[in-house]
């Protein structure tokens, strides 16, 4: 029998007992639906992180902090810990994790480290628009290696006092109607110094960049950031608990991390951060997929049951086929392909429902808890994922159908022709 005829015959056999087939397909489609959603959720998050961190790909930038950061033991519910002179004291408030000027010099001297930059922690109370409206003014310090997708104007340089970059969404703060008219406009910010007194400083907008989740909406030049940070910190206190460095071209990623580690510092590139986030998502995805697996397992039992029923119902037909010259393997193919088709159609139905759910959930998410976060699709069921799921489900149900198919192929044709 030709394979195409086996598929057609198996497919038409599914229509013989419509209710039974429907119920089996329903069970498979529920499993497929949950699997598609869980994998689609992971893919959606992964895509978003990748698009956000993608601009850092290949960027020579490492975040360096004290290795002792992991020694946090602020929670009181533990037994007394013996003092170890080789370890920094544990802390409940991270104060001891700030980098002192000598430690910053130590990092500078680590072999392979170049271009060390401090990410000054500057706090603005508010920004005042030309029309007098006060806005929150979240910001970060410009880092020379940090990539910005500047859509108009120019990027900052490491020596650019008086300038800022603003996000495309922050045009109202400078009273600009469009991105082109924002260049050269004044951003007026107010901050508190260490004594609680308010000061105001004005910056000129040098460039407007495409907003991104991990970039602050205002990027302050290094010189002014340092000045304000010093005003805001109590006299003599350290300013940062991590720094950014670039590595020299003659050292590898592993070497710079090893050199930093030997000096009791930890260096992480953005690729590491990306990998960590992806690992977390993969973990979540596997957990969700495991739940889907339970639903699929239940549907597999349904497939086996359906196929055994079909073998019983079609015993005489099996006998007829054998009497008319059909080989045992043809009977085996007919039933095993029928099982695979149950998975295939169940998969298609499940995927269709998953697409409907995806549209609805993404819409609801965009209008509620993800409102204002551009570029994120919570669920992203890609075509390759659809093919993957349908193939996997078909293979699983095909395997489930092997035993009933084998039983069908072993039916005694003489007995089956007598079967009532």
């Amino acid at each position, binding site marked *: 029998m*030709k394979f195409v*005829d086996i598929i057609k015959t198996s497919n038409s056999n599914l229509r013989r007992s419509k209710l039974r087939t429907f119920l089996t397909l329903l069970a498979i489609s529920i499993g497929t639906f949950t699997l598609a959603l869980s994998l689609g959720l992971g893919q959606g998050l992964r895509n978003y992180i990748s698009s956000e961190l993608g601009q850092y790909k290949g960027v020579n930038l490492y975040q360096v902090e004290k290795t002792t950061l992991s020694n946090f033991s602020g929670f009181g519910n533990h037994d007394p810990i013996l003092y170890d002179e080789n370890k920094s004291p544990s802390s409940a408030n991270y104060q001891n994790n700030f980098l002192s000027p000598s430690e910053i010099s130590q990092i500078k001297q680590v072999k392979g480290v170049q271009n060390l930059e401090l990410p000054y922690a500057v706090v603005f109370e508010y920004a005042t628009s030309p029309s007098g409206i006060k806005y929150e003014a979240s910001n970060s310090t410009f880092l020379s290696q940090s990539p910005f997708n500047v859509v108009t104007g120019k990027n900052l340089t490491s020596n650019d006092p008086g300038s800022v970059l603003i996000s495309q969404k922050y045009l109202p703060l400078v009273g600009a109607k469009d991105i082109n008219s924002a260049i050269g406009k004044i951003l007026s910010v107010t901050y508190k110094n260490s004594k609680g007194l308010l000061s105001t400083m004005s910056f000129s907008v040098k460039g407007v960049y495409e907003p991104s989740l991990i970039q602050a909406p205002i990027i302050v030049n290094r010189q002014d950031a340092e000045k304000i940070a010093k005003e805001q910190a109590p006299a003599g206190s350290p300013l940062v608990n991590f720094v950014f460095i670039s590595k020299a071209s003659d050292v590898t990623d592993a070497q710079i991390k090893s050199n930093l580690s030997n000096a009791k510092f930890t260096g992480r590139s953005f690729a590491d951060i990306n990998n960590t986030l992806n690992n977390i998502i993969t973990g979540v995805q596997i957990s969700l997929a495991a739940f889907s697996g339970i639903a699929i397992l239940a549907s597999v039992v349904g497939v086996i049951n359906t196929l055994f029923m079909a073998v019983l119902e079609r015993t005489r037909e099996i006998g007829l086929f054998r009497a*008319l010259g*059909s080989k045992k393997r043809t009977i085996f193919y007919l039933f095993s392909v029928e099982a695979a088709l149950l998975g295939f159609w169940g998969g298609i139905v499940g995927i269709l429902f998953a697409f409907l759910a995806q549209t609805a959930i993404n819409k609801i998410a965009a209008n509620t808890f993800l409102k204002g976060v551009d570029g994120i699709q919570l669920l992203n069921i890609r075509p390759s994922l659809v093919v993957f799921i349908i193939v996997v489900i078909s293979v699983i149900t095909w395997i489930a159908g092997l035993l009933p198919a084998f039983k069908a192929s072993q039916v005694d044709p*003489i007995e089956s*022709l007598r079967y009532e």
Partner: protein
Amino acid sequence: MLEVVNVNKIYGKKDKAFNALSNISLSFDKGTSNAIVGKSGSGKSTLLHILIGLDHPTDGSVLYNEKNILNDMNTDTWRGKNVGIVFQQFFLQPNDSVLDNVGLPLKLQGISKKIRNIKAAEALKKVGLEDRMKSKANDLSGGQKQRVAIARALVDNPSILIADEPTGNLDTENGDAIEKLLFELQKKLGTTLVIVTHDTDLAKRCERVIYLKDGKIEKDTKKEKKS
């Protein structure tokens, strides 16, 4: 053409052993009509199953053109290409069209739909049902169903046509018509016909009648050919 050589069939073992067939040797010549007659339990169905390779004899062999159908060839392929079978219960696919039912043996052989539809239409013409080829098998009368079964058996021009109680499920009128059709087609196509029946009237229409009793050949009669 088709020979049964010293065939024994024993069911069960030792004390419970039962001889369904004992030392049966028969030869069916090409283009002849033959009947195997016997009461229930005489062994005629067992002999039929062994003849078409659905069952294996305990001893002995079945030869087709001097080749053992079980050892010298693929029995399923041989049966599909050389043997047409008509059953008492018709065994049609109720929801399939008449054309698809008749083309089923060809489908099992892997023949394309186009060719099997042509051949099935020709076979239906032979049994006078060319106008019902699109009907569902379920919509036919008993007599028509058996005609479809005959067309299915003849669709690939087999050299052997086996009919197992072909009129057993039909009323007298339809039974007579099917009998007539079987013999007409057998003569016209030159097929070797083997009818298994307990109906002696039907058997007597064959050129040769083999009487089975308790698994043994009781009598083997041949009509003398009219000169």
